[in-house]
C-alpha cells in the first residue's frame, strides 16, 4: 500500500461507505479504500498534479481550495469525511471541524503534535521544529494553527465532539504503542475518529 494512512484508518471505515477526502492529494488513500472497503469516494484537491492523478485513478475529484470554505457541500451527506494533514492549515479549524461533522457522520482528522518531545527540544534549543509530521521550514509551512494533542482534545470537548477512537504515530508516522503511553509527549501525530455528541 502506498498511503500509510490506509492501514491506520481502514478499520474505522465500514464497507461501501460514502467517503469525502478533503485535501486528497493524488487520491491514493481513496483508491486503496475503494479496493479494501469498496467505498465510494470523492476527493477535494487544489494541486493540479494531484487532480490529474485522481482522474487517472478514476477517483472523482473536485478542484477546490478548502480554505475558501466548505459551505457549498452543506447539502451533501457522507458517512466519513477525512481531513489528513490539512486542518491546521485552515483559517478557522474549529469552525471547519463543525461544518465537516454537519455533512458527515464521522470525521477522521490527523493533527501534527507540537507537544512531541522533538518539537519541544527544538524549541528549547531555540529553533522551530522540523519533523516528518512538520516537514517545512517556518517560512515555507502552510500550517497556521499548530497545536498539541492536549490542545486538540480540549477543543473537541469544548465543541461537543466525541473522540470515538484515536491512534498515535511515531516519528516514522507508524502506529506506535509506545507513543500511546503519553501521546502529548511521545507521538509526532494523532489520528482521530470524531463524531458529534
Amino acid at each position, binding site marked *: 500500500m502506498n498511503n500509510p494512512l490506509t492501514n491506520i484508518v481502514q478499520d474505522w471505515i465500514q464497507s461501501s461507505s460514502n467517503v469525502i477526502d478533503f485535501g486528497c492529494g493524488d487520491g491514493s488513500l481513496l483508491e486503496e479504500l475503494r479496493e479494501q472497503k469498496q467505498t*465510494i469516494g*470523492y476527493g477535494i484537491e487544489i494541486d493540479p498534479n494531484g487532480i490529474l492523478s485522481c*482522474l*487517472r485513478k*478514476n477517483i472523482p*475529484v473536485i478542484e477546490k481550495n478548502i480554505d475558501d470554505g466548505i459551505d*457549498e*457541500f452543506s*447539502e*451533501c451527506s457522507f458517512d466519513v469525511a477525512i481531513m489528513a494533514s490539512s486542518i491546521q492549515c485552515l483559517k478557522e479549524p474549529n469552525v471547519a471541524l463543525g461544518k465537516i461533522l454537519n455533512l458527515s457522520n464521522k470525521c477522521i482528522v490527523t493533527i501534527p503534535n507540537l507537544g512531541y518531545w522533538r518539537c519541544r527540544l527544538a524549541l528549547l534549543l531555540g529553533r522551530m521544529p522540523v519533523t516528518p509530521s512538520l516537514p517545512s521550514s517556518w517560512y515555507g509551512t502552510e500550517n497556521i494553527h499548530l497545536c498539541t494533542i492536549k490542545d486538540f482534545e480540549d477543543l473537541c470537548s469544548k465543541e461537543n465532539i466525541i473522540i470515538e477512537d484515536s491512534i498515535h504515530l511515531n516519528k516514522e508516522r507508524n502506529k506506535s504503542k509506545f507513543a500511546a503511553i503519553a501521546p502529548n509527549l511521545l507521538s509526532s501525530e494523532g489520528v482521530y475518529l470524531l463524531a458529534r455528541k
Partner: protein
Amino acid sequence: MKSQRELHTFSSGIILETGEALSSFDLMVDTYGELNNDKSNAILVCHAFSGSHHAAGSSDDGKSGWWDELIGPNKAIDTNKFFVVSPNNLGSCFGSTGPISICPETGEVYGKAFPAISVLDWVNSQEMLLSKLGINSWACVLGGSLGGMQALQWAITFPDKIQRAGIIAAAAKASSQNIALNEVSRESIRKDVNFHEGDYLKNDTFPKSGLKAARMLAHITYLSEENMNKRFGRKIQDVESRVDDLVDYEVENYLQYKGEKFSQVFDANTYILMTRAMDDFDPAKKFDNELKDALKKVTAKLLIVGFKSDWLFPPERGKEIQLAAMQSGISSSYLELEGQQGHDSFLFGNERYQKNIEAFLRS
C-alpha cells in the same frame, strides 16, 4: 487520421419536444479514427451554437476543425484510440436539415416554418445516429458551451447509452444575462429590413447586416476583458487594413471582420433557433427545478470543466452541476482551468486541459 464525411438520412423522421414532427431529416456527420471490433470506443462530440460537423483536421480550404486542438492522433481525444463522431446539429445550416433546407411536404425552403428545436431534440436525433451506426453506447459524449449542454442532456436522457460525459464551459440552464444577450442578437436580426419575418430566402434576400451585428455582440461575450486588452488594447487600426472607413480601433476592425465572415456562412433563422435552444435548456424544470433530482438516473461518469476567464458560463455554473451530481451520488469531477480566452477557452488545447481530458477518457 482516418476521417470520413457522410450525410445520414433518417427517413422515419422525428417527433420534436414541441410535439411537432419532421417527416424525414438529414444529419451531416464527420467521423475521425476507426470503430473497434467491440464498438466500445465511440465518442460523440457536440458542437456549440455556430459550430459544424467539421471538428478536426483541415478542410480543402485549409480551415481547421473547431476542436482540432483536442481531436487527432495522440491528442487529448486520441483518434488512434477513439472513433470520434461529430454531427452537425439538426436545425443548423451546414448540411443537416434546418431552416435553409427544402421542406419535403411543400417543396419550398423551410425558412421561418422550420420548427423550434431543443437540446433534447438534438440528443434524440444523435441517439438515432448512434443506433444507425450500430453502436450500443458512447464511451463519452462531450462538448463545450451549448455542446456541453448536450452532453449533460445525454447523461440524463440515455443513461444506458453513455459511459462518460464531458461538460465543458457550460451550464445547466442559461442565466438571465445569457438570455438577455441572446435577445439583443435576435433583435438585431429581426429588425434587419431584409429579414421579412424569417422568410428572407423566399424573397431572395438575406438579413446580412443584422446577422453581422448579432455576431459582433456575441463574439465579445466569448472573449475575456483581459484577453481583449492584451490582444487589441487601444491600438488604432492601420489605414490600409481597415475593413471600412468607419473603423478606428483594432478591436473594431477585428469585430467587423469576424462579423462579416460569419454573416457570409451562417443562416439567420438558424441563429435564432440555436440561441432559443440555449435559452430554453433547463433539464431541472421538470423536476421542480431541482437539478439533483433531474440527475438521479445518471450512470455516466461526469467531468465538468469551467474556465476562470469565462464570464458567459462562468466556472460557478459548472460547479452547480457537479454539486448536484454529487448530491445524487453520481461519480463527478470538477476542474477549474486558467484559460485566458474567456468562454472560447474551451476551444484551445492548453496542456493541463488536454491531459485531464485524456485521463478522464481513459479512466
